[in-house]
């Protein structure tokens, strides 16, 4: 296991800038989640770290060693691809064995069997081991693909949206499994997703990417509570942060043009009136859709609320986040 350091990493594909001067330090044994929409450069970072692509500028160091010019095999990274990339002519067991059968490792067959069975157990694919890898569902393929990385003991795991095609229950199971595997083994893991639940629940660190730039890096809590920009703030939080023009409220800082309200920033029962447009009972909580001075808002309220559509409720911002015209946070 090792720490990973990216410094000044840039990459363009033709005229499209995929990454722009990204500096990132992934501590040894950390679980780093890269968040951002499609095209933000998340996958590009993984490919640079793995050595499948070479950066135009900047360097990658793994465990203190400069990786420039080294192949993925020499870097000893394990990667889970978004498109699974299973070996179609091999069955599930052969796919899982493939990395262990590398002549570099000289793993004895009994050890290979043990490892493969163990990983298959965790990923709930033991009963599929002798299936053809092309005769699996998308979720099963994805699990085999994760398994192919987990059987190894690399210096860093790279995972590109590994849980995206699983159903909700399995995804929740595997989130816990992956997190505990990582925590127990002390592995360094770089994980790409745009699912904020995965980011919040698994990450020790979150990196927020915007158009090839790393805009914020910190613990999930830091990014949630102390985002540097409107963009970073809207990456995390369910329901999403509400953004309203700042001039709807009194006492805002002079340069603020918009105000960001998470549910906990909205005090109910005081302040100005708003109209309830919809009530969503989710069981453990209730979501309120409100109209406040012609602006839509979503907040959370008591699970057993008596409020109904058409009711009015007074609300008031409580310690909200302020942003200037460029979207930067005002503190």
């Amino acid at each position, binding site marked *: 296991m090792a720490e990973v350091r990216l410094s000044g990493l840039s990459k363009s594909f033709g005229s499209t800038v995929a990454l722009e001067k990204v500096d990132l330090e992934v501590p040894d044994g950390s679980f780093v989640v890269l968040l951002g929409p499609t095209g933000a450069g998340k996958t590009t970072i993984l490919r640079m770290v793995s050595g499948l692509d070479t950066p135009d500028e900047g360097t990658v160091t793994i465990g203190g060693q400069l990786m420039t010019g080294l192949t993925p095999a020499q870097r000893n990274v394990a990667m889970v691809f978004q498109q699974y990339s299973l070996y*179609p002519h091999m069955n599930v067991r052969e796919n899982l064995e493939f990395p262990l059968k590398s002549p570099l490792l000289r793993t004895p067959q009994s050890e290979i069997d043990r490892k493969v069975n163990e990983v298959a157990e965790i990923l709930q694919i033991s009963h599929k081991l002798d299936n053809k890898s092309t005769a699996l569902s998308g979720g099963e393929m994805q699990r085999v693909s994760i398994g192919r990385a987990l059987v190894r003991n690399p210096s860093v795991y790279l995972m590109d949206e590994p849980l995206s095609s699983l159903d909700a229950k399995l995804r929740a199971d595997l989130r816990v499994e992956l997190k505990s595997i990582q925590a127990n083994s002390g592995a360094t893991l770089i994980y790409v997703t745009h699912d904020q639940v995965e980011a919040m629940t698994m990450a020790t660190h979150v990196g927020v990417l915007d158009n090839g730039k790393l805009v914020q890096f910190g613990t999930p809590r830091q990014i949630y509570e102390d985002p540097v920009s409107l963009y970073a703030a809207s990456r995390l939080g369910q329901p999403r942060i509400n953004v309203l023009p700042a001039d709807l409220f009194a006492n805002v800082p002079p340069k603020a043009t918009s105000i960001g309200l998470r549910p906990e920033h909205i005090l109910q029962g005081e302040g100005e009136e708003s109209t309830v447009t919809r009530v969503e009972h989710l069981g453990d909580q209730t979501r309120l859709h409100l109209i406040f001075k012609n602006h839509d808002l979503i907040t959370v309220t008591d699970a057993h609320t008596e409020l109904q559509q058409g009711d009015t409720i007074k609300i008031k911002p409580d310690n909200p986040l302020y942003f200037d015209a460029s979207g930067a946070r005002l503190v």
Partner: protein
Amino acid sequence: MLDKKTGQAPAPSQGSNTRGMKGLSDRMVGWIFIAPTIFLLLAINIFPLIWTIRLSLTNYRANRTNAEVKWLGLRNYERILTDPDIWNAMQATAHFVFWTLTLQVLIGFTLAYLINKKFKGNDLWTTIIVLPMMLSPAVVGNFWTFLYQPQIGLFNYFIGFLTGADPSSFSMIGDVALAPWSIVIVDTWMWTPFVMLICLAGLRSIPDSIYEAAECDRASKWRQFWTITIPMALPFLMLAVLFRGIENFKMFDLVVQLTGGGPGSITELTSINLKREAFEKWRTGYASAYAVILFVTVFGLASIYVKALNKVKER
């Protein structure tokens, strides 16, 4: 449209029970559509085949239609299978098929592998390599007789240049030892591009991401080649071998133009041999038996091979 009473769509038509246009059942319409094809197939494939089998049991001669036709039973077959000339032709064919396939697969796959590497102008190279395949076999046979010409032939000059031997000291199509190789060389020259194209299709069907995964799984280029490239391209490779194998088993035009079966009957492949029996010696019954034997051989080999191919594809 919705049914007014039940509000449901009408049930879809169910096979032959539903009446189609003008009272014809679906099954009937189907038969009408395939009838011309079935008729043609029967008329130009199945009927001649059965007729050939019938003729093969007689001493019929197509140039003497008035002569009495005698029923010989399996005598023709017996005579063919004990005829040393025919065994020589079989051997010449086996030699030709084996070596053309081996060379074409080796060279064709290598070329495909090289062309598949991303480099500038590989489309142009593909076009150039494919050119020989587009020529007529008769033309190819004809101009290779010039290339093989001991005094003025480019081929002889080229070999002489490489080995230092006198170009006019050997004759590819005149020498008993060299002639079998002369036809192997020309067929390989002409048809390697075909094998290359099919192999190229096979190689292109392997997505880059598979190699990337293997790269991350720490497989060396060597291991990637043997565990990914070869197994994944194998069905294509086998298909190329099947096509070329069947084609070369019945090779005729190219070799007739090039050597005419000579010198002596060294390059007389079975199809040339057969043509001599049927249309020079006019032993129609005998030649029919010969044709049936060849048909059964090719058909048998091909079906065993196709079984193997399907097994490989199913993995």
